[in-house]
């Protein structure tokens, strides 16, 4: 569906708060625009973004049409243990895009 870009620090100290940056390419079509022939372009946006850390949900966002194209979201989490962060975007057509990043906690 789309290209993603994730920025998670590869190493962190236990208990440290880290910043996570995510970007996905997506038109985020609002459903309010029309094409050259005046036909409404159907709505197609990413409406859900979820991040899990070793299987536990740490961040979830419900997105609406007011989110700009190519949604960019940054947030924070506490580095608790080494493992994998998984990212999951779901759009109006039910298409799901996933990405993951490894982190080593010392």
């Amino acid at each position, binding site marked *: 569906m789309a290209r993603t870009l994730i920025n998670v620090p590869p190493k962190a100290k236990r208990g440290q708060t880290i910043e996570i940056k995510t970007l996905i390419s997506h038109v985020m079509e609002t459903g309010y625009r029309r094409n050259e022939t005046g036909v409404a372009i159907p709505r197609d946006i990413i409406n859900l973004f979820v991040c899990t850390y070793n299987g536990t949900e740490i961040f979830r966002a419900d997105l609406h049409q007011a989110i700009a194209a190519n949604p960019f979201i*940054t947030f*924070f989490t506490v580095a608790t243990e080494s493992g994998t962060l998984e990212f999951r975007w779901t759009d109006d057509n039910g298409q799901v895009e996933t990405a993951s990043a490894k982190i080593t906690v010392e």
Partner: protein
Amino acid sequence: MADESASPVTRRAVLAGVASVTGFATLLVRRAEATPEMMRAAIHRLIGEQPVRKGKVTLDIPPLVENGNTIAMSVAVESPMTATNYVKAIHVFNEKNPQPDIISVHLGPRAGKAAFSTRIRLADSQNVVAIAEMSDGSLWSDTVEVIVTIAACLEYN
């Protein structure tokens, strides 16, 4: 001159017709943007009737933006983010886009810091409101008035 009352198209009928067409047009224009009432309804739908206090929330968004299609926005909430005192959710609303919701994020004590940032679209100069839902159920907000010179959403391809 012909008898006016006998004519099928009277001045009164024409005026009434014009008035209803204008009214209809206004209605169509209105339909495309969320009004402050719609924003209130959206807030009500998400968080209910509890009182919302000002403070604790910092909504960071430029007060003057050139392009409404992509505006950097970040929200930070003052909170110790411990297991018993943390921010549950942050909701952001607007007044004049076609839809009043922007984003709702759900966090927990594991976030460490109650903040996020993203990029949004605004269709017009308007107020943007961020509301934070705390673990104890209290609600805090911040409002920023944004002036947009080129609006999003309304342009054609």
